[in-house]
């Protein structure tokens, strides 16, 4: 049984949650951005999480063969698949239309005098940030628990 695989699982979640927090920070930083590389106002971005379905890479296959596949954790239905961790499948743009504000003096104002601002609600972003922080903390404490399991396993050898 590979105890270090546990840490990889929790580590992948911490990585994904930090990425989520970064995207939230980008959204908040660009709440007033009217001009991006594409020429449009900034659009709110969101992350999409997807569960890892155990890769079939060489290293996994080799270790499977070496361990006679006893250490792998199968997902329901398909045996031998690792249900380990999470990854960010995509970062998608919000399709909500931009907010129009009347400001004819603005350099990005349209011919009608309206400026398109990104539709970013600080409240939504803060809630998302809080969720990311909590999930990060949860997986952080899981890593602590895993570390203590590994170090207690080392105690067996001490007499």
């Amino acid at each position: 049984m590979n105890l270090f695989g546990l840490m990889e699982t929790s580590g992948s979640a911490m990585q994904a949650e930090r990425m989520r927090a970064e995207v939230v920070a980008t959204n908040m930083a660009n709440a007033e951005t009217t001009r991006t590389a594409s020429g449009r106002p900034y659009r709110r971005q969101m992350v999409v999480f997807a569960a890892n379905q155990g890769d079939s890479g060489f290293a996994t296959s080799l270790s499977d063969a070496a361990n006679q596949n006893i250490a792998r954790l199968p997902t329901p239905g398909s045996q031998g698949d690792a249900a380990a961790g999470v990854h960010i499948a995509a970062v998608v743009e919000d399709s909500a239309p931009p907010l129009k504000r009347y400001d004819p003096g603005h350099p990005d104002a349209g011919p009608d005098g309206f400026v398109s601002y990104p539709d970013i609600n600080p409240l939504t972003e803060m809630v998302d940030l809080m969720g990311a922080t909590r999930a990060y903390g949860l997986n952080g404490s899981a890593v602590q628990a895993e570390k203590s399991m590994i170090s207690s396993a080392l105690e067996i050898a001490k007499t």
Partner: protein
Amino acid sequence: MNMEVETRLSEQVARYMDLAASEAKLTAANMANIDTPGYQALGMDFEAEMREALSGVDDDRGPRPVHVKTVEGLIARPDGNDVSMDRESLNLAEAQLKFKTGVALLRQEYQRLMDAIHVDK
């Protein structure tokens, strides 16, 4: 007389620790996917697996992969995810305690062996 370092008890405790680690692994996977839409919490029947493992020790069979199944009866959030932070935290604490119990038992078993080796001292 045939002297074995690996006793039946130490083998049983090893299987117990394997299962505790499997449980921790499942819990960690659930925790990692706490925000994944549509993810369903995975779990295992520890008692049933332990019974199977104990009969495996008696019949000299190697460890088998555990039967993982989705946990029934959890309340799913609107995005279809039914992982509960509290449930998983408790499960992880439980798995950790089980593992540490296994460590303590195994240490005691090896200590017994060491005592037998050093019996003339």
